[in-house]
């Protein structure tokens, strides 16, 4: 019998100390789920027990195959798992790299709230992938290591993408503060009651006696679009008055976020902003790549990890790889896109090819930077390709004015009559179908989206969403493209 443990025997929020383990029995035909609500410690114990048994079984089988040495395949898969975890940011880095002053500022700020009960508000601003959440999580981790703080602080995490209006946000806050059980389902009668209730709760506290609440608002700019900015006003108002101590931490990538705030809300915000704009040089970038790719000395096996790390060193020295990385760096300093690149390279590592070679990196880079639409064009039929070429000619003739199906069809018919020998003369319904397919692929787009239903399909005005260069490039790479079609494409007039 094989038990596969779902990765999240995960703690359900709001019900502390109670978890559910889901064990799926695959050996039996019925794919049933058993859910056991258990005390946390117990569940962890069980988890550990099952894990060790599983590991024991694995090592037993390994020992049979090859005494006490992991195969290359095992090493590779373990290394891949470790690195994937790293790239998918399931692990926090050991410390804040390159943002130490910001880290210190934020840590001090939150610590003052937690320890002194001082209310604060702060915004962390930085472009996407600059490490805002990473910084905050590092700070929180460090903060909560302090037992004095941990016992005292309440944490409320909101995300502008999830809490799309204040009603949802208030419910979420109540839930995360675990106030909902205080009044049963009564609170959630109406939005107004909920707001009054929460304000009441927060108003009753004072600096010295009640537990500080840390509000973390991810995608802060989206909260500013809520009606009247009620939530923000109230949070900032609490932070500026003698009520329950709160710290409001907003994360956003918009530089103009303060201009979004209404004047009263803005006045109540403390105007503390932590900018994550580090002028990252290529040297440091390379260093990061090296760090991200290298394995710890003893995982999975000393010799393997030594070899691996040496190959990483070699990779970073390599001219071609460096050029690829440089190109990537020039395009964006975002660490997420770097992780994407490295992930693609990593997945090309196999048993026969147990290290990352420069060629892998180049291939990954090519995949990353490939033009998405050119890829789509490669998959089109000849008829669809012909239509696109016809549209391109129309664009040339009419200088980018929108066209309709009838125009495209005429252009296509002209081409067929004049010189086509290889392209079959398709019926009009077939051509319409092809045209619609192009629309579905969003290679063409109707100019006025809403009134599309009014006009007949053939006469809807369309625009081509492909550039001249893109079409020509795609044609070059199109497999077995008929020469007359190619010629038609390059000819200056239809």
């Amino acid at each position, binding site marked *: 019998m094989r038990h596969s443990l779902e990765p999240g025997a995960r703690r359900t929020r709001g019900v502390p100390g109670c978890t559910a383990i889901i064990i799926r029995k695959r050996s039996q035909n019925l794919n049933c789920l058993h859910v056991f609500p258990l005390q946390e410690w117990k569940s962890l114990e069980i988890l550990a027990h099952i894990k060790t048994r599983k590991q024991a079984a694995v090592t037993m089988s390994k020992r049979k195959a090859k005494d006490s040495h992991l195969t290359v395949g095992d090493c590779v898969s373990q290394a891949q798992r470790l690195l994937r975890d790293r790239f998918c940011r399931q692990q926090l880095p050991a410390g804040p790299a390159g943002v130490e002053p910001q880290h210190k500022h934020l840590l001090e700020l939150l610590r003052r709230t937690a320890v002194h009960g001082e209310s604060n508000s702060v915004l962390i601003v930085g472009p996407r992938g600059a490490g805002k959440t990473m910084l905050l999580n590092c700070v929180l981790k460090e903060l909560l290591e302090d037992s004095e703080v941990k016992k005292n602080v309440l944490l409320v995490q909101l995300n502008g993408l999830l809490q799309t209006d204040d009603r949802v946000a208030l419910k979420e806050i109540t839930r995360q503060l675990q106030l909902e059980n205080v009044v049963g389902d009564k609170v959630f009668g109406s939005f107004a009651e909920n707001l009054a209730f929460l304000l009441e709760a927060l108003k009753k506290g004072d600096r010295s006696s009640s537990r500080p609440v840390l509000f973390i608002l991810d995608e802060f700019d989206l909260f500013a679009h809520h009606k009247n900015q009620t939530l923000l006003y109230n949070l900032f108002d609490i932070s500026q008055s003698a*009520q329950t101590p709160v710290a409001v931490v907003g994360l956003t990538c918009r530089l103009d976020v303060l201009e979004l705030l209404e004047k009263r809300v803005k006045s109540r915000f403390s105007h503390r902003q932590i900018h994550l704009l580090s002028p990252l040089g290529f040297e440091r970038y390379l260093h990061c790549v090296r760090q991200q790719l290298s394995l710890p000395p003893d995982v999975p096996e000393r010799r393997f990890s030594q070899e691996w790390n040496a190959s990483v060193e070699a990779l970073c020295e390599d001219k071609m790889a460096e050029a690829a990385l440089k190109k990537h760096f020039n395009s964006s*300093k975002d660490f997420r896109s770097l992780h994407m690149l490295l992930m693609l390279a990593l997945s090309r590592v196999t048993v026969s090819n147990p290290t990352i070679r420069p060629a892998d990196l180049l291939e990954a880079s090519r995949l990353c*930077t490939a033009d998405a639409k050119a890829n789509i064009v490669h998959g089109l039929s000849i008829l669809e390709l012909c239509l696109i070429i016809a549209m391109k000619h129309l664009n040339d003739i009419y200088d980018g004015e929108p066209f309709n199906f009838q125009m495209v069809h005429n252009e296509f018919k002209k081409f067929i009559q004049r010189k086509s020998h290889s392209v079959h003369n398709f019926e009009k319904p077939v051509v319409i179908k092809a045209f619609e397919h192009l629309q579905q692929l969003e290679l063409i787009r109707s100019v006025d989206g809403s009134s599309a239903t009014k006009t007949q399909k053939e006469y809807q005005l369309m625009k081509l969403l492909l550039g001249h260069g893109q079409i020509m490039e795609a044609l070059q790479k199109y497999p077995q493209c008929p020469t007359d079609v190619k010629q038609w494409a390059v000819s200056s007039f239809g």
Partner: protein
Amino acid sequence: MPGSHRRVSMSTGKLGASEAESGHSSSKLSASKDLSRVRRRPSSSTPGVRKKLELSSPVKKLNRQEVLGELLDDVFEAEKELASKLPSSPPRILTLNVSLTPLRPSTESHNGIRIAPLKTCRISPSRTAPPLQDHDSTRDGLGVSPLVEEEEEEAEAETGVKRRSLRTPVRKQPTPKKSSVLVRKARTPSSRKDSSSTTREPALVILPEEHAEQTAMTPRSKRKSAQLVAGRIRKQLKMLSTSQYLVSDSDDGDDGFVPSKKDKESSSEDDDEVEDLDGESDDEIIVVKRSRRTAGSRTPRSTQKARAPARTPSKTPSKTPSKKAAPGTPRTPRHATPSIPSRSLPARNPGNVLEEARARLHVSAVPESLPCREQEFQDIYSFVESKVMDGTGGCMYISGVPGTGKTATVHEVIRCLQHASDQDEIPAFRFIEINGMKMTDPHQAYVQILQKLTDQKATAEHAAALLDKRFGNPAPKKETTVLLVDELDLLWTRKQNVMYNLFDWPTRRHARLVVLAIANTMDLPERIMINRVASRLGLTRMSFQPYSFKQLQQIITSRLNRVKAFEEDALQLVSRKVAALSGDARRCLDICRRATEICEQSSSQPSAPGLVGMSHVMEALEEMFSSSYIAAIRCASLQEQLFLRSVIAEFRRLGLEEATFQQASYQGLTFPPVFVQHQALCRVEGLQPISVSEGLAVCQRLGACRLLLLEPSRLDLLLRVRLNVSQDDVLYALKED
């Protein structure tokens, strides 16, 4: 029924014949005390109370109920006896236990009914606590009750003699006047005391009338006699009132509870007599009221004076949260009041000078005084004071940019007025605050006002109707209500009926409502209000000017209050900078706080940091006011920088002059030509040209930071691009390196 009941009372009476007398008298005393307390509390009897009374009053008009109530009093007396025998146990709980046991099983079905009138009688003065929770309140009340006792004794000592001399002659009057035949018929021959308990129910009905009389005859001069006592009581109360709950609970608790305690103390026959008389006299007062006796000769007024200040702690604005809390969840028990759990470890207090300064500079720190707003304070104060004194209504519109101390000044005014009314310099009034930002819908204003006024919960329409009735109809006893409407502009609706009502109520004859409306813009009445609303708002307006740098400096200095943490120049720099930008005091304080942090971090020894100097303030200012666009451009990746440059290049290519440039930049450029420019620039820079997808990605990244303004990305190639920073800024930022 009466027979069985008498038997009960007899059987309990047998328990201690010697104590029966004192027990009876004390119960009467307690009843009369209840009564007198209710009566002596003209202003504290909130509408909620009145409502409760009204609710219970029809019940009392029923004859059967009256009889029942009377009978119950018998039982109650017996219990009193028992209670006095067991001095250590809380008497209230005991009361219930004993009252139930002697009853026969057949009558048990009536228990609920029987106990109910008793309870409503006794609890009616309490404001917030629902009947069933009185055990709690008695427990809480234990701590404070001796004080109340003392206060009563003082009051009585003062007036006791007079009262006796005055009351006794009138004593005979009530009995013939009492018209309810049934009551007398039902009255058991044994209990003269019963009369007190039966009459007290009618008394409750009369209550409102009586209030009116009392307020009508309270000129300031007559109160002076009681002020000495009042002062002492207040002092004691303040010592005790660590939390408002305790006080308010004690209010609830002492009503039903204190008398029994008094029992224990009143051992001498003489005392009993006095109290007996007291009880009787109270009895008469009710009737006296009916016989239109002039209020001036009424002696208990002094007691009322003595009590009035004692109530005040529960009337101060700090009271409102507790009021609000209870009705927030009416059906749930009282424990359901929301609160953030308290911390396990106490908050640390500021350690060094800078931390101390930071704590003082926090906006939430309540300053000792509000400097620089003396004139505005005076204006608002005299406005509200005159309205409260005259018992009329009015509106005032207060405007000013955020952070100029509008709300703070009004709060300060109210605090002072409340202090004055504590001192009996002006009549008591109620303060209610609503905030347009703290409600989800303008119509919620009605709900919130009603809730704060009467603890009632209603839908918006119903609340509006109730409030309209309340402010529209003459009520015999009504204290002035001061309503602060913060963020008025958010109460705007299409029909403007919320605003209309808010400003219409004060103009009604009997409303006695003062509305202080606060908003940011000076011309709000002209701009958004329709004529009938603006006209009702009137012309009493005040505008708070932004603080000048001197004022800001004064504010900081007064807040710091001799904590030496800042250099003089640094303070001046901050206040000048803020005054030049907005005159927002909050901003000023925030900058100062940030400067202390910077100072702390930069100082070499953390234990004894130096003063906050110019450099620290400069750094804080830089952090808060500098635009980050240029830094963002400098930190952008090479392709992003190139893209910005190609946007500018495309504008140049189109050959737009500076004037038309604005317009064109407003309309934006389509992506493809910009991308062509980008490709060209890439070749110039010796970089490999990027694909369209990548180009779009670069463009989107710039759009996410708002360096560029973009149309939604679903437009793909057709999206328009425009710069969100000035062309010069981009060129400047890119030229440096």
